[in-house]
């Protein structure tokens, strides 16, 4: 009988069923050690060198974008930036294992995912320069806009998956979110809904240990992948700094979904190496030691080491550096050349159908703007 679950003991004078431990510590799936050598699982799985190079390349480009964007923010060219430094493996490993036709619902930190999907630097930065709330057409990249209200988009993904199931496609609908977001009601409603309806949703949780200044220990009392499992879906717990392990787990999860139709979850254990955003000062709440210990598990370094162990020619790295440099320049140019936004143009974005009173407001705004322009001239 497994009706009672926990490893802790209970006081009782009479026999009631013993506790059963389900909350044991599991170590995450990992293929590549921080020094570039393979783990036993990595050996068993085997390494695809072309795939590895491709993933490394994407991670490096994502890191370049992230660095350039932060520096643009520091120069006052962007209002805000949410750094993905340290999370490149979790993002690239997962997105690369999906099909381009799989719709993705990202949160606000998935710049590596967006770049991988082909979103241009201009489309990416326009939001953070304060010119728009979103920069790209979701249908063009099968990538929805960033969700800033935590966890809300997991329900959108779930609804989108209802359609996918009804149409009997073999699509996977992916939703990215953080450890903090899992405390929101919406995320749990989505877990439940997707499981009850056996919907093709792939939940991808990047557990980067922090929600701004709140550590996972304050956030929840159990592990996220176990919680999702108990909602009724298979889950994978993976070293989120190991791009190959993330890729393999995502491949397995996506295949499971395509075959069986129900949802799945990947918990990628990773670390937010930078502050929460360009406005945040993480030294107020976390230690240098913690940061250093994670720096030693950097997702790029270990793959670079692996590639060197596997005798990747120097030319690969040199070409990649050049690409990165080109991307950096492109990011800087794109940012500075973004067109200004006119408030008058935004009135038409609110409603799809004519709206008399908003139209009247637009006219009065334009008249007064014109009048003021006259006064100030």
């Amino acid at each position, binding site marked *: 009988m497994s009706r009672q679950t926990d490893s802790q003991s209970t006081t009782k004078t009479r026999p009631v069923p013993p506790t059963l431990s389900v909350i044991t510590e599991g170590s995450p799936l990992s293929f590549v050690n921080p020094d570039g050598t393979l783990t036993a699982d990595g050996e068993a799985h085997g390494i695809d060198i072309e795939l590895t190079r491709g993933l490394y390349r994407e991670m490096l480009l994502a890191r370049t974008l992230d660095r350039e964007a932060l520096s643009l923010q520091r120069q006052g060219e962007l209002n805000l930036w949410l750094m993905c430094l340290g999370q490149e493996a979790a993002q690239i490993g997962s997105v690369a294992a999906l099909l381009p036709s799989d719709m993705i619902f990202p949160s606000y930190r998935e710049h590596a995912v967006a770049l991988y999907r082909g979103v241009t630097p201009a489309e990416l930065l326009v939001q953070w320069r304060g010119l728009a709330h*979103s920069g790209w057409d979701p249908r063009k990249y099968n990538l*929805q806009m960033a969700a800033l209200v935590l966890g809300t988009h997991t*329900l959108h993904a*779930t609804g989108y998956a209802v359609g996918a199931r009804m149409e009997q496609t073999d699509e996977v609908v992916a939703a990215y979110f953080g450890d903090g977001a899992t405390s929101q*009601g919406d995320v749990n409603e989505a877990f439940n*809904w997707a499981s009850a309806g056996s919907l093709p949703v792939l939940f991808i949780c990047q557990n980067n240990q922090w929600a701004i200044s709140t550590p996972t220990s304050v956030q929840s009392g159990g592990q996220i992948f176990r919680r999702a499992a108990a909602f009724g879906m298979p889950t994978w717990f993976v070293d989120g700094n190991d791009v190959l392990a993330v890729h393999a787990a995502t491949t397995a999860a996506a295949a499971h979904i395509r075959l069986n139709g129900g949802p799945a979850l990947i918990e990628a254990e990773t670390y937010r190496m930078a502050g929460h955003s360009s406005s945040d000062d993480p030294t107020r709440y976390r230690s240098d030691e913690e940061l250093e210990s994670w720096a030693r598990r950097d997702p790029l370094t270990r793959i670079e080491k692996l590639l060197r162990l596997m005798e990747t020619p120097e030319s690969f790295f040199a070409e990649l550096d050049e690409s990165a440099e080109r991307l950096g320049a492109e990011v800087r140019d794109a940012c500075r050349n973004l067109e200004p936004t006119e408030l008058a143009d935004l009135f038409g*974005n609110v*409603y799809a159908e004519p709206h008399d009173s908003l139209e009247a407001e637009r006219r009065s705004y334009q008249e007064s703007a014109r009048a003021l322009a006259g006064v100030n001239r």
Partner: protein
Amino acid sequence: MSTMSLVGALNAGLRKSMADDDRVILMGEDIGTLGGVFRVTAGLREEFGADRVVDTPLAESGIVGTAIGLALRGYRPVCEIQFDGFVYPAFDQIVSQLAKFRARSGGRVSLPIVIRIPVGGGIGAVEHHSESNESYFAHTAGLRVVSCATPDDAFHMIQQAIQSDDPVIFYEPKRRYWDKGEVLDQSDRNLHEARVLREGSDCTLVAHGPTVATALAAALAAAEDGFSVGVVDLRTISPLDLSTLEEQTMTSGRVVVVHEASTFLGIGAEIAAAISESCFYSLRSPVLRVGAFNMPYPPAKVEDAFLPSVDRVLAAVDHAMNY
């Protein structure tokens, strides 16, 4: 033309929308097998299948959130919220997501979603089952808010709401669900036009949903006393059909707004403010409001004293006439 109850008219309207457009999907708690606690969706699951008349888990945020996902895929979901007081768990999805989605997307993505809400009191229900919360949604840019009062409007407005490419909050007056009326084959107006039910040269009553019948009864009573009192059925709460209201104000010079929501920041406040601004010199008395007191909906046994009654409306007309 045929005679139907308001519930029947909604049912017929939904059926027609579903038959006309297979992207229309109904979803909500207990709407499938049971046909909804008010039977508005009765028989539709049998006709259109369980994929299109969906019994959902018990989670309002989930209902609206997944409807958004469906709409992103091209569907036109119609969500039922079981009772007015249970819409609040979905408030974030409605106000931050549904309402703002098109603006956030730079006009790229529209969400043609209808949220049906049985609204208001008068049926002797327990707490949370008699609320009037249209102000919250009417104050929210990006939404459209409408309120039907008769079977005919119910039949046509639900179809128009479903056809709208914008999100529509669709209010259904619970205590008029079983009232019968004639339903015409064609609608004579679009979703966002008010309807003048009665012209009046002394005063104009403005109502929507459940209070339209109250206003009409008050106007009749006033007529017996020799006053010419008009009645406007708003039908649309956001956007308001101001030009109709202005026309009537110009004629009568006196306006009384009647609704079940609290008067404090109820739609009567907006109407008073807007009409006072546009018809400043035509008003012979201030725009008056008859609505709920600033308290939560009371227990059922005192709801008759709480709801805007013919007597309270007549007192307001009196007050306006003697201002």
